[in-house]
């Protein structure tokens, strides 16, 4: 018999057993909504499974029963005798059908229209009220002997009697009863007629039921779990014994221990097997899902499944069921195009979703691939910026694959249109979290227009994992093998050597820069390294798509370990996912690569919200320290520019620089990018490599030619001497050297005359005043901050009105506030209005910045309390206005 069918029979019989008692309870207790609910659920399950297994007769009966129960559940019907009888009748019918099914593996021929008709009639309230008791009486007695005196003796003899006779008796009964309530309703004979069929089939069913029951037993999962734990312990003990044996040659224990070894291995395998289930079980609902989806969405979808027999731990199976379903649904819904789009794209009309599962080195790999349109990177990018996941400038530097990863972030609905299929709350972030929870990984690859592919890698079982044992500063740690990509040995002076940028270590690995974290520093393992620092091992680790290296002193072996949770007292240390006992009996901590990645700053670069949440203090430091790119161009004096203004750093062959209209340009990402030099006298190289700083805003790129990129530093930007010559905002001491800070605006305007309006303007030194700059666009914040600093303001920035207001409310003092108008969340108008309500800020000058300069906007700005209104790109206007306000602060505010 088919496994699925066997499971279904065992389960359904069990459920029916529960139902029988529940329904009887219901009759005694008709107003218990919980009871009705649970009965409904069981019936619903039966219906669902029947439908799935292709058992139409069963499904129809269960469906009709469910309908009736639904009415009861909704309170539209009262579960009186008649209703209960009907339901019981339906159950009996199901039982009899099941028994035949069990014997023949097929549903019996026949039709249940009469029963279904009555169930439906009752559910829709067609049976008239007075008729109800009469209709109810007969079948009820036929099933459960009622205490009513007269028919009882007949009843007992009733069961084994051949069909036609029962019918006759029942008919008679009905006739007897009929006179009491007025009209004998037509449906009465019907149930009786249906009954015998069921009865006749019953005895055969009982025999078969016991046969199935004997060949499979249902064991509580807890028992299995417990068994698994015990076996795990046994495995560990065996490992310990074997370790001891290795140190003793010619021990008399060696023979018995070898046997113990084998028996234990077999036992482990056997117990594992009890927990193993084919992955096909998790897929079984997918064909139906895809079928329904293709109808609903008007797409033609072909679902191909390979490797259904691949087995994995049932605990794991349960946990990946939902993520899998979600991914397949996503492929069908978002990935695949409509037939006409596919035809237009030159693809076959029928879209394909491929599911493939196979074993690979102690893991199961599940691939879900579609040949649809791939991901819409632009939309994801927009959404990421909108959600504050990354800044515009950052987004510009990411590759498409990096951006694609954003769909795994919380709050990212990939669906532009919420269809009935998607947008139901299970997001990709949940998928990823669930998979990572069981120590798995999910990888996303896509090709625009060609399709998307998800690769899920999960451990076979959660109980025993293979781990790499490493040593750092004399302590040993285990790293789960699944997250380890490769091992690299780095030695000083060789080709693979650890390099540092501002103390952060990096490794050049196959033309990529791999960020490194030192386990020693991360775990604060103390000062004594104890090992020659010139050599270290790097465990290249992958978390999601973030790849980084963990620096350790030594690498030992891989070992099978049993993960045990850490003591509650240590549970808030995110670096460890558990601990275990090694073969030599020592305790070892298991490192959690997710925790390390998070602590190493992956999260810091990816999630700006976290930084914002840290609030005031953070805002203050941010305003004071900014990252600067130091470079050389035209002369030896270092020059600097705020790093956040730079979209990318490029290096190109100087010969690829072309000239258009006498100005240098470069073919860049399919467009011509204007190039500018640091000053007119700068000689553009004709050969060799040319470094270019690329500035980007929306669709426009501009390249600044430089000689050499020196460093990236984080410094408090204090411009000492300003306005030396066009293109410079002044000089600052950076890394102990006088450095020219370049005025990006100047160069942008050289490349695109209209970028900012007029670029340079002389402005006078004024005493340092505290200025709060509120703008949601990091680009403008970064652009304005140096300009304002050089104009003598101590600038604090806030990226939302809410954040700015919180700062003000928290007691920060500002002499001048400059705020953008169009901001997500709290607008500039709302911000100004709220700000004016704070006593200290009633008189403070507040400037509005906006790209919209409609008279009504200006009017509104004045009304809510803005002191002045300046077009966003009018740098000169802003500085002039600030100067004016600084000159006569209070006077200006009062105007």
């Amino acid at each position, binding site marked *: 018999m088919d496994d699925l069918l066997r499971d279904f029979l065992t389960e359904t019989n069990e459920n029916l057993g529960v139902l029988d008692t529940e329904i009887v309870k219901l009759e005694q207790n008709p107003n218990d909504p919980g009871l009705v609910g649970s009965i409904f659920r069981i019936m619903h399950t039966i219906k669902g499974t029947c439908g799935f297994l292709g058992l139409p007769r069963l499904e129809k009966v269960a469906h009709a029963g469910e309908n009736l129960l639904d009415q009861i559940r909704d309170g539209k019907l009262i579960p009186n005798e008649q209703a209960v009888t009907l339901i019981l009748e339906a159950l009996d019918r199901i039982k009899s059908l099941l028994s035949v099914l069990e014997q023949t593996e097929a549903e019996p021929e026949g039709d249940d229209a009469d029963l279904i008709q009555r169930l439906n009639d009752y559910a829709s309230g067609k049976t008239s009220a007075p008729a109800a008791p009469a209709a109810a009486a007969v079948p009820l007695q036929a099933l459960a002997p009622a205490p009513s005196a007269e028919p009882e003796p007949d009843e007992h003899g009733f069961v084994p009697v051949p069909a036609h006779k029962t019918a006759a008796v029942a008919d008679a009964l009905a006739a007897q009863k009929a006179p009491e309530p007025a009209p004998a309703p037509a449906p009465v004979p019907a149930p009786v007629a249906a009954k015998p069929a069921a009865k006749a089939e019953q005895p055969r069913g009982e025999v078969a039921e016991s046969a199935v029951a004997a060949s499979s037993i249902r064991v509580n999962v807890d028992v299995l779990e417990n068994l698994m734990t015990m076996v795990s312990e046994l495995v560990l003990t065996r490992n310990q014994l074997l370790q001891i044996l290795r140190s003793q040659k010619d021990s008399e224990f060696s023979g018995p221990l070898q046997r113990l070894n084998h028996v234990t291995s077999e036992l482990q395998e056997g117990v594992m097997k009890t927990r193993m289930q084919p992955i096909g079980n998790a897929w079984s609902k997918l064909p139906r899902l895809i079928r329904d989806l293709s109808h609903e969405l008007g797409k033609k979808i072909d679902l191909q499944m390979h490797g259904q027999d691949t087995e994995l731990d049932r605990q794991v199976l349960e946990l990946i069921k939902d993520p899998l379903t979600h991914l397949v649904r996503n492929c069908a819904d978002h990935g695949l195009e409509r037939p006409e789009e596919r035809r237009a794209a030159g693809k076959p009309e029928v879209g394909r979703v491929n599911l493939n599962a196979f074993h690979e080195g102690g893991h199961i790999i599940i691939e879900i691939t579609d040949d649809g349109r791939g991901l819409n990177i632009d939309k994801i990018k927009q959404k990421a910026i909108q959600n504050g996941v990354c800044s515009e400038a950052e987004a510009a530097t990411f590759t498409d694959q990096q951006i694609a990863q954003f769909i795994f972030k919380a709050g990212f609905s990939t669906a532009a249109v919420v269809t009935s299929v998607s947008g139901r709350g299970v997001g990709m972030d949940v998928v990823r979290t669930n998979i990572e929870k069981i120590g798995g990984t999910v990888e996303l690859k896509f090709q625009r227009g060609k399709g998307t592919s998800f690769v899920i890698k999960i451990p076979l079982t959660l109980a025993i994992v293979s781990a790499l044992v490493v040593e750092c500063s004399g302590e040993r740690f285990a790293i789960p093998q699944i997250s380890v990509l490769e091992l690299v040995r780095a030695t000083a002076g060789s080709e693979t050597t650890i390099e540092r940028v501002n103390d952060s270590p990096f490794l050049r690995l196959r033309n990529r820069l791999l960020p490194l974290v030192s386990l020693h520093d991360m*775990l*604060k393992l103390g000062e004594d390294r104890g090992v020659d620092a010139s050599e270290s091992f790097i465990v290249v680790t992958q978390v999601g798509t973030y790849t980084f290296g963990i620096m350790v002193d030594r690498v030992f072996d891989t070992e099978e370990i049993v993960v045990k949770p850490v003591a*509650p*007292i240590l549970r808030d240390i995110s670096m460890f996912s558990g601990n275990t006992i090694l073969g030599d009996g020592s*305790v070892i901590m298991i490192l959690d690569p997710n925790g390390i990645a998070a602590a190493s700053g992956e999260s810091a670069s990816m999630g700006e919200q976290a930084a914002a949440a840290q609030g005031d203090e953070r805002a203050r430091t941010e305003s004071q320290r900014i990252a600067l790119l130091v470079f050389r161009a035209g002369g030896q004096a270092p020059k600097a520019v705020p790093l956040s203004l730079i979209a990318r750093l490029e290096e190109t062959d100087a010969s690829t620089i072309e000239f258009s209209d006498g100005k240098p340009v470069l073919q860049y990402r399919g467009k011509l990018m204007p190039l500018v030099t640091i000053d007119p006298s700068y000689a553009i190289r004709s050969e060799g490599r040319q470094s270019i700083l690329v500035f980007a805003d929306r669709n426009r790129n501009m390249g600044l030619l430089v000689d050499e990129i020196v460093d990236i530093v984080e410094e408090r930007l204090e411009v000492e001497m300003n306005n030396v010559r066009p293109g410079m905002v002044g000089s600052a001491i950076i890394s102990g050297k006088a450095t020219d800070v370049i005025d990006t605006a100047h160069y942008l305007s050289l490349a695109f005359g209209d970028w900012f309006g007029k670029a340079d303007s002389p402005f006078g030194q004024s005493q340092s005043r505290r200025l709060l700059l509120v703008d949601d666009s990091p680009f403008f914040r970064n652009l304005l901050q140096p300009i304002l600093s050089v104009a003598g303001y101590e600038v604090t920035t806030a990226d939302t009105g809410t954040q700015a207001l919180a700062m003000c409310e928290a007691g920060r003092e500002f002499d001048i506030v400059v705020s953008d108008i169009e901001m997500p969340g709290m607008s500039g108008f709302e911000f100004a209005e709220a700000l004016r309500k704070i006593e200290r800020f009633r008189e403070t000058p507040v400037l509005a910045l906006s790209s919209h300069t409609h008279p009504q906007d200006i009017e509104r700005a004045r009304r809510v309390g803005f002191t002045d209104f300046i077009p966003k790109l009018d740098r000169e206007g802003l500085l002039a206005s600030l100067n004016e306000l600084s000159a006569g602060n209070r006077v200006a505010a009062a105007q």
Partner: protein
Amino acid sequence: MSNSLVTADRPGGVKPAGADVANDFVTMMVADQLFGIPVLTVQDVLGPQRITRVPLAPPEVAGALNLRGRIVTAFDVRRRLGLPKREADKPGMNVVVDFKGELYALMVDNVGEVLSLSADTYERNPNTLDPRWREVSGGIYRLKGKLLVVLEVSRLLAIKRGGVEAA
């Protein structure tokens, strides 16, 4: 130490009626101070053990050790009480206690015998006691010649750390 007993300790582990058991204490020495833990909470007494350090753990947690296949968190009682470290040449002992289903090894200098103490020698924590000690002490028994401080395991293990009480 037995001369200081109010009631003689019972050899052979024959337990008297329930009320008395509650007053049976495993005694231990930490920096010349006598401490006691109710005997029923003690699972094991171990000699010096190989302890695996747990980085980033609270300072009171000395590490983890393997007790017959179970991982036990080693807890430095001296550290908890603000006492100096034990000299390196003195090995120390571990008293393993069960707390909420988890095992903890309390690292002490020495473990003495089990004492049955009479309730009328019991005093509540004197106010003059160092707050750090008062936090973990469940009262004091007056023994002949010395005082025994009752260690409250639950409070001993509750390390204040980011507002979350351990265990």
